[in-house]
């Protein structure tokens, strides 16, 4: 079965693009538009007995930002090991460290090469 990747970004255009790229790479994609929705989508998936294999999240989002979202995800025992990649325009080193500390596994700055994203995803899912 294809790996399921959960994409959280407040821009539908970004989601559409990521979805396209990831589908091309043979992955299935679910999405949410901010952290709060992200948390409820995860709960919904859990209720169906499902769980994403990897999470890609933006940082700057309304309602719940990426940092808080990652923290919330990591608080769930079953998500302790799920790879989380941050995808953002933010390059601020402090923010990056905060991301690392709350449990992000990688930090990819937009703009990026689509192939690079697929490489990272593949690497994480090994």
């Amino acid at each position, binding site marked *: 079965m294809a790996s399921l990747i959960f994409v959280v970004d407040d821009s*539908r255009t970004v989601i559409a693009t990521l979805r396209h790229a990831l589908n091309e790479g043979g992955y299935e994609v679910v999405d949410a538009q901010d952290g709060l929705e992200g948390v409820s989508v995860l709960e919904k998936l859990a209720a169906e007995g499902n769980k994403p294999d990897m999470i890609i999240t933006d940082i700057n989002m309304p309602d719940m930002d990426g940092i808080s979202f990652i923290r919330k995800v990591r608080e769930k025992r079953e998500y302790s090991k799920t790879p989380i990649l941050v995808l953002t325009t933010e390059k601020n080193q402090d923010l990056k460290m905060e991301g690392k500390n709350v449990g992000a596994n990688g930090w990819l700055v937009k703009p990026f090469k689509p192939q690079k994203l697929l490489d990272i995803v593949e690497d994480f899912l090994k």
Partner: protein
Amino acid sequence: MYEEDELIQTFIEEASENFQVIEESLLDLENDPGDSDLINGLFRAMHTIKGSASLVGLEYYGELAHKLENILSIVRKQESEVPDIVFSALFFGTDVLKQMMEAGDYTGESFQEQIEELNQKIKECESYFNATKETSKNVSEEHGGEESSAAGNFYSEEDSDVEIFEREDDGEAHYLVLLKFHRDFLESGVDLMMWFMEMEEQGEIISTYLDTADLPPLHDIDPSLLYIYWIVIIKTSQSKEDIEEMFTFVSDQGDLTVRDITNELYYWMQSEKSLKELWEESSFEEEQEEAKEEEKTTEVQPQTQSGVNQEQQDSQQKPQQKSSQSSAQRKAREQEQANTIRVDAYKLESILNEVAELLIAQSRVKELVLKESSQVSFDVDIYNAFDEVDKIIRYLQEEVMKASMVPIGGTFVKFQRMARDLAKELGKEMEMDITGRETELDKRVIEQMADPLKHIIRNTLDHGLEMPDEREQVGKPRVGTISLNAYHQEGNIVIEIKDDGKGIDKEKVLEKARDKGVIDADYDIDDNRVFNLLFHPGFSTAEKVSDLSGRGVGLDVVQRNISNLRGSVEIESEKGKGTTFIIKLPLTLAIIDGMVIRLGEERLVLPLNSISEFLKAEEGDIFRAEGKGLILSLRDEYIPFVGLYQLLGLEADHTEPTEGIVVVLKDGARKLAILVDEIISQEQVVIKNVKEHMEQVDGVAGATILGDGKVAIILDVASLFRLTKSFSGKVFT
């Protein structure tokens, strides 16, 4: 590689929403220039537009958005009030971007002038920021590096900037150790400190939790008892068995558990909850999982013993109950989540049309079957079955209708923006007060109402509101108020545009109407009708043609647009106090509940929601008022009475009030009694617009096809009231 058009379509939809957020926030921000939430929201919206634009390959467009984003970014970091020039630049920039998007000109070829001006405004802002404080220095530095690449492509051809966070994976495991000894443990003489020291030797103690919940007040403490317990997390290269071995000789003296948590570190280390809470939570979860496992095994086990005792049965039922309960909870949770999908408005429209056709087909079938059965015997079952189908169609129609309704708030906000600009241009001061944003209207109605509303608001600003000085002289606040309000009334949506300006001068209107030959010189009419004259084609009271509401487009266009939607518009005004435009619109465009009536050979439909009651008039119920028309005395009310045949110029069987049926119509607070020949049936009718094919006829809202396939005219109640006015004075013969 991508479905480009689709992607750009997504971009346009998203950007439109973000532009609305931007405009709304800017307007709010003007009132409260220090609100950092608003600034953050603005920044995020602009940021998204920028990012998405470059993502779909509209680089130039993205760069423009990026410049505006930069200004917002500086504002955000300065944490001070937003200066006027920034507002001006942002408003202007948003306009330019919107216009470019509307024109589909993302490279700005035909917008050179505006873009030039925008760049100028942005420069002004930048130099303003550079002049204020040293904070701007940090800001611009940061921006030079951080954001420059962000305006480029989402996908970069250069090497991507990525950092993978390496975790120190030194092969060491994390264990959680629960040390909860029996209360009399101290009597065994074992030194507790020993374990802690040993754990230190085995690895590293990462975190400890000491539970003192059972510790009694000092004077009650028995020094020989152990009231407290520990939860410890250690990091070690030892195996779980090694750790457990440390406690083997006391394992019967309490609750001693070692758990491998290497894979759950975030859960244990990052939560704000205490180790104790986490422990209880996780133990509970595990018990549940075990229970589930047990459930599975009990299901599989065949019942070998015949005499299963009660206890066993109970224990089997319990987990089942538990699981059914949790699935109910799950369902509830799923329902709470608002799942949305985006649907093309056109699709909804065509579904609604199909439902309308279904309705016509259904009433045709009904008509045929019932005619047939009435010749033999009246079949109740058939009738009930038809009722059921009617109900389902009605329900279906309502659901589809609901799906195509959107709140009017967004449109109102647009006008707020427009009014603000306009007021500035006119040198007037204005505040806009919006209520009923959440009132929902058919999307198509809202779209078609945009122009009429715009026109009325322009009119209000131009003719209604006075100049600030003028207002002051008459004792009003300098700032005028325009209120937009939307609400439901009797199956209609009412939109009110109200100002506290100078009102309409009735005499002036009359004079003008006479001058223009709209009415006869000696024609005397009442107030409401005077104001309605304003809707007459070519009528304008403004003495000179202003830039704004002159231009030959008058309120007549407004009225025509609104009546095309089967709505009505009226003016209420008091000199010196202000003017209110009241627009009534039908909830839906397609289907209404109607009462079919007969008048001579014609069958006509009255909208059910405007019928108050029917009655058979007695001698003496109807009398002539002095100098006016006929009046129906109904209970304690006096209601104007007129024959429908007179209003419409049709032949009728009955012209005597006591012979036909009297229908009492209502329109808001007003009532009107009309005489018709017969009431035929109540039906849901599908409105077919007739106005495309014929001249506008007063009193007619549209036409429909009845069950027998014949056409019937749907009457427009609001205009019946108007027609009646022109009849006052004429007599029943």
